[in-house]
């Protein structure tokens, strides 16, 4: 019985629909990955992808785009109920996986570029509402945000550079914009450092990915502050892996020692954009726990066959069926290699759990590929 979609299904639309502004076509494609018919979406007056997303939203289709840098962004449709569920579930998972509690009134520190999407907005709002001290929120506009419109412009430029139609001045203009963006990004690091130092006496909740968080720790240490200056009740919310960030081997220790963090107030989770359920990490067993409404189906590397699951751990390609999703199909095959165990964990929880050594197959396969066939992508410099 057909059950799972590969995660790439959500970027299977032809790029020309996006770059050629063929919104009716893109809407039709959205219908192939949505559980709701998309013919109620009116594309009249839609001029760019950001306004197309607004048009979808007006018709009850909440489309979240992933923030690939130059690749095609994935587009994940969701129903309103999905956003509500994700928001509530996100808060519960934090409390399951750490000592962070609703009403902690923490000073929120967030750092790193975040993709603007209905889902990130919904879960972000919920987390702020649950754990943050409203009086001490950062001024809006402090963090850089990535819109799908800006990603699309990058894709277009990459294409025109590849086929040789980009004029030198266009590339020069892009380089100037990139430099400005980089400066803005550097400035947000400075702002975040200032903010964290100013609030060092508060109970903090630091939300970032490992890479940016390491940057932040280094900068704070550079200014002469370390664990002794920070509260032992500081908490952190860590999402995602390293995403190829270049950090020293002991980056975790450096981060923990800088901000006086402890395992008790550290929340780590495994999740993916294509599903909506968080899999929080337990402290005792150090494993990611799969909630009852999330069915884990470990597949072979190719993603074609379900692996036999007896007692003991199974290593394979992660696939999940998220029963909580309404707006799109809940079954998805990921790009990750996981080790899942359906037996109970050392922490006492009987739920299936995933070992903390998740890797992307793409990273495992390495780069030792050499062949005489290839595409013009190899000839485009400076847009990675």
């Amino acid at each position, binding site marked *: 019985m057909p059950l799972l979609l*590969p995660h*790439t299904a959500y970027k*299977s639309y032809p790029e020309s629909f996006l770059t050629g502004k063929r919104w009716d076509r893109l809407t039709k494609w959205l219908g192939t990955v949505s559980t709701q018919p998309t013919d109620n979406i009116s594309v009249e007056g839609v001029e760019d992808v950001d306004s197309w997303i607004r048009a979808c939203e007006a018709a009850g289709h909440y489309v979240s785009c992933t923030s690939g840098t130059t690749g095609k962004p994935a587009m994940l449709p969701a129903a309103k109920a999905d956003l509500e569920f994700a928001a509530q579930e996100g808060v519960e998972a934090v409390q399951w996986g750490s000592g962070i509690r609703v009403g902690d009134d923490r000073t929120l520190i967030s750092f790193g570029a975040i993709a603007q999407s209905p889902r990130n907005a919904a879960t972000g709002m919920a987390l702020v509402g649950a754990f943050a001290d409203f009086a001490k929120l950062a001024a809006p506009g402090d963090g850089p945000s990535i819109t799908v419109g800006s990603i699309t412009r990058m894709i277009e430029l990459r294409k025109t550079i590849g086929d040789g139609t980009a004029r030198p001045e266009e590339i020069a203009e892009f380089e100037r914009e990139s430099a400005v963006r980089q400066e803005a990004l550097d400035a947000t690091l400075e702002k975040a450092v200032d903010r964290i130092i100013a609030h060092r006496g508060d109970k903090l909740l630091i939300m970032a990915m490992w890479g940016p968080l390491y940057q932040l720790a280094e900068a704070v240490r550079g200014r002469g502050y370390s664990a002794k200056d920070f509260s032992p009740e500081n908490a952190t919310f860590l999402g995602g892996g390293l995403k190829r960030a270049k950090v020293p081997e002991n980056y975790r220790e450096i981060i923990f020692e800088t901000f006086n963090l402890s395992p008790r107030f550290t929340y780590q989770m495994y999740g993916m954009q294509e599903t909506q359920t968080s899999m929080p990490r337990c402290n005792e067993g150090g494993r990611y726990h799969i909630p009852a409404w999330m069915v884990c189906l470990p597949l072979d590397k*190719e993603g074609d066959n379900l*692996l036999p699951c007896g007692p003991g751990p199974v290593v394979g390609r992660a696939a999940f069926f998220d029963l909580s999703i309404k707006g799109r199909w809940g079954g998805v095959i990921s790009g990750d290699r996981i080790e899942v165990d359906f037996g109970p964990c050392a922490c006492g929880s009987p739920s299936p759990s995933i070992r903390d050594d998740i890797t992307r197959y793409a990273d495992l396969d390495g780069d030792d*590929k050499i062949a*005489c066939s*290839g*595409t013009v992508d190899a000839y485009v410099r400076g847009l990675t």
Partner: protein
Amino acid sequence: MNKQISIAAANSSDSPPDAAPFFIRGMLVEGADDIHRSRDLGVSFATPKLDLNALVRPRTELPPLLNVPLAEIIDFLAEAGEQLGRKSNVHVDACIEHMAKVSLQPRTAVEYMVKSAAEYLDPKSLREVVEQNFPNPEALDGWVPHTDHQGRRSFIRAYPPRLIHVLPGNAPGQGIRSIAQSALVKAVNVFKMASADPFSTVAFLRTMADIDPEHPVVKSMSAVYWPGGAEQVERVLYRPQYFDKLVAWGGGDAITNVMKYIGPGFQLISFDPKTSISMVGKEAFASDEAMAEAATLNAADVAMANQEACVCSRFTFIEATPEQADRYCQILAQQIRIDRMGEGAPRPLEMDLREQIETLRLLDDDFAVFGELDGRGIAIRSDEPVDFHPLRKTSNVVCVPSLEAAFKHVNVATQTVGVYPFERMTDLRDYLASCGAQRVVRLGEAGPSAIGNPHDAMYPLHRFVHWMANEDGCEDPR
């Protein structure tokens, strides 16, 4: 677009990794010190420990082939060619067995490529390669005198270079071609083999060593493996003091990594990663016979070598209405799907590719898909090129109002352009060259290539050598 999930036993193979010995200047080096994994199919192979010192000879030592006449080198290569072409050659047979496990191509294709590579060693062909690459091949054997119009005398020599070759993993025959070309220019060589083929180059060299282990050709060749990009090897080895030129096939990180070592005295000769295309004029729709002819020729260019090579057509630009193109695609897909290599059941298509094509099938206003997603072949009609790289016998047929309108899709990555009808080549070639393409052929003839022709817009042998001038003053000093 949904997938079939079935329960299957985990595929565990406990067989020991295949041995991939090295060859260092005539000596076979065996050992299982390091276990590597092939890039594409994840098959393990074992190599001896890499001895970096063994790969480099001091520059004060003259190249072994320097004073061996070209004619003698060609004789030796020709004899090796005969040995390789024999029905049964112990080294080559073993190599085909090993390669069938690590290669993306079916066994018959591997066998064909390895065996047919021996044809490259035909003495007539080798001589022609040299004559096409050098206006005066004498410069390979000695110092050729030349006096300029002002009376200044010189002696010019195409001096043997020190080359390090980064071989591709998708073309098993390239090892033998590279060995032959290097021998023709009398180079001192290190061949870095690919993880998708750590076997064939050593098998060829062993065949040569069986003829005469002391022959200067054999003494000039080393073939080893290390994972592409391994800094502990490349930072040490990629230096002008050791090598003059790095000859790199293909693209990917293997080449990106190499770039940082290129500098004064250490040049890159790169055979870049390429895409090949077809152009079919409206003449193909003059009759059913013409259409069948064009589609059949087109299929030959798509399906050869399982569409793994750079010469394989991936996009066809066609002067046709969508309805005409659909009729064309039907025949094209049929022809592509014929199993000419005795592959039997092909590997299933990769999940991503399957998903992309399935989606296009759903978007039937703009696309039409012919054939099945079973790895045997597929043709996709569209009005813009698809944004994935067509692989595994996939042809994207793009409707254009005129072939000239397709020039915008020809770029610096375009290698071969197959044209139908053939007489339209002359009208197209200036523009194709200007856009960056490198070879125009009759549709259906992307595979065979004329002996000694330029490759990737250069005469490679001419670029390999260390052009040396000995100036000897004026004939008649004033």
